[in-house]
């Protein structure tokens, strides 16, 4: 269990910069999720912490001690890989014993440690099976047991749930979080699945092009995205984006100026001062309201129904508004017709500049 400092970590592969000046402190016992699309540098960052990848520049410290030039074996880490990396010729027990035997731990001590991790991960009954025959979920539990049996300073998880079938993944996520809290090991988890990130993390670190876009508790990333990329990457179904025009009379939907948008005057003044004539409005589908009774006005617009699908207890509807698309997540009994009235609560609207930066 340790505090991990990453300072200005940079990794270049020839012309490509995979990780670009990554700086962060992971607190003891914290569950950090590195989230981002493929190629954003999240796995490379993880491999740097593991020591499997040497950084081009920057420093890594465990509890203040520099480990940047140490080999993986010298760092006291545990790691679980994306695809099952258990030793296929060994049983579950022999797999878990492997890191202990490699370090020459005496046999009675090994047996005791295996017993205790087997209890945590509830795998006592499969210890003597060869790992190849086990279902993916059980195999990843054995992988986790092997990673933590040595009581590592840091636990590194590289998309450990991507090989587990969808139906068990939810359960595994919940268990993973329980295990992590129980063991209290500082954990770094890499994933491209935003739902996984949101349900596991104490802190989500959203990455793009080797840099941190936003870092914070899941709720912060969801409710207060740093930019358009963060807004679109997190949340399912993803956020609506509407292009707006800044005209003399105020804000309006670009393709139909008669659809007015309410925004604080100081914000509109700021857009003008920045020389913007277009901004992008973002709103999450579940915050779009059906307001058939309300008079048409700012943020209350007539909308043509394009399609609607019942997903579980929600109605996911797609509307056309002034030639642009708005998705709404409505209650299943919502009274939608070919023409409905939608309300976009101003307090839930975000504004982004044409370059994707958050402007309001």
């Amino acid at each position: 269990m340790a505090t991990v400092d990453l300072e200005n970590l940079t990794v270049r592969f020839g012309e490509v910069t995979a990780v670009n000046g990554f700086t962060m402190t992971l607190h003891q016992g914290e569950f950090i999720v590195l989230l981002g699309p493929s190629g954003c540098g999240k796995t490379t960052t993880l491999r740097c912490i593991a020591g499997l990848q040497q950084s081009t520049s920057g420093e890594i410290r465990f509890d203040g001690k520099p480990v940047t030039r140490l080999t993986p074996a010298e760092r006291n880490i545990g790691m679980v890989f994306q695809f099952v990396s258990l030793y296929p010729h060994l049983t579950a027990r022999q797999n878990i014993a492997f890191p202990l035997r490699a370090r020459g731990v005496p046999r009675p001590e090994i047996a005791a440690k295996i017993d205790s991790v087997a209890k945590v991960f509830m795998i006592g009954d499969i210890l003597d099976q060869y790992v190849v025959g086990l279902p993916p979920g059980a195999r990843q539990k054995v992988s986790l047991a092997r990673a933590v049996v040595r009581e590592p300073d840091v636990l590194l998880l590289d998309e450990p749930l991507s090989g587990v079938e969808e139906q068990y993944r939810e359960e595994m996520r919940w268990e993973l979080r329980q295990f992590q809290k129980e063991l209290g090991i500082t954990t770094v988890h890499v994933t491209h699945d935003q739902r996984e990130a949101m349900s596991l993390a104490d802190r989500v670190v959203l990455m793009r092009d080797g840099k941190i876009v936003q870092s914070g508790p899941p709720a912060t990333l969801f409710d207060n995205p740093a930019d358009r990329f963060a807004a679109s990457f997190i949340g399912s179904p993803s956020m609506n984006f509407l292009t707006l025009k800044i005209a003399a009379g105020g804000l309006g939907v670009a393709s139909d100026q008669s659809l007015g948008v309410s925004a604080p005057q100081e914000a509109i003044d700021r857009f003008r001062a920045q020389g913007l004539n277009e901004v992008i409005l973002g709103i999450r589908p579940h915050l779009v309201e059906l307001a058939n009774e309300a008079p048409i006005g700012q943020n209350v617009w007539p909308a043509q129904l394009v399609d609607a699908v019942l997903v579980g207890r929600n109605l996911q509807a797609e509307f056309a508004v002034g030639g642009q698309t708005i998705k709404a997540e409505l209650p299943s009994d919502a009274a939608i017709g070919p023409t409905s009235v939608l309300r976009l609560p101003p307090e839930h609207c975000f504004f982004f500049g044409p370059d994707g930066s958050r402007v309001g």
Partner: protein
Amino acid sequence: MTMSMDEPPMAAARSGRKSFRTLPDAWLCGLFIAPTVLILALMVFYPFLSLIRYSSLNFSMMRPNVMPVNVGWGNYVDLLTDKDIWQRFVFTGKFVLATVSIQFVLGIAAAYGFQRDFKGRDFLFTVALMPMMFCPIVVGFLWRYMFNSDWGIVNWLISLVGVAKVDWLGKSENALWAVAIADAWTWTPFVILLATAAFRGIPRDIRESAQIDGASPAFTFFRVTLPMSLPIITIALLLRLIDAFKQFDLFLAMTAGGPASETETAAYSLSKIAFGYFHTGEASAFAIILLVVIIGLSMVFVRYLTRLSNRI
């Protein structure tokens, strides 16, 4: 064309001559397989069956006009009660053990070395594979000269470190090692090739897991790399055992079976009976005995492999 309703829709799409369309599937299958079966029958079954037939005859191909006499199991009994034959088998066994051990120790060690990335690796790898491509009889003469006790390079080299000259090919126990070295020189590359393929087949995640688990290179090699490569290495071992068991060319070139018949392998003996004395019947029986030994050996390996692959 008429089409009944219960016919599958594909039937309508079928084209071709009517005679083929009306042929039952089983006949059509038979027709397609027939050429292969015919070739197999001519090239494999016929020679094999005639071998079995010859093995029960007192027959020499040098005297085709003499009516062969059926001796039943006679040839087998004669061979298996001949003390010399057993000595040939013992010698063959020693030779196989010696050459295959050298091949696997050196081959696996070299393959381990080739896992690392170093300058000129690909070139060196190609060079290392070359001995396998030489004609065996050429290899035999090459090594016969190198092992020449008067002017061979081997004796010259050991004389440099002050060791007395060795009569490499004149004494059977030395000749065994000399031929084993020549054979290993030819076939170690094969082991390098297969072991390299096996090692490269181990996923990167596994190697990195071992690194993170703090396993030393030796621990990783003996506990992970080698056991995971076992299926391929076992196949290599089987192939090398069978080939070494049949070794003939090198002995012909290097010792011609001498001194006396002390360095005759089973295969060498067989060729002497067949094409030296032209005891075709006895030679056929001998060939079948060798075949049985090799098949027995293969079956042991196949069973072991099945067990391995059930586990991995």
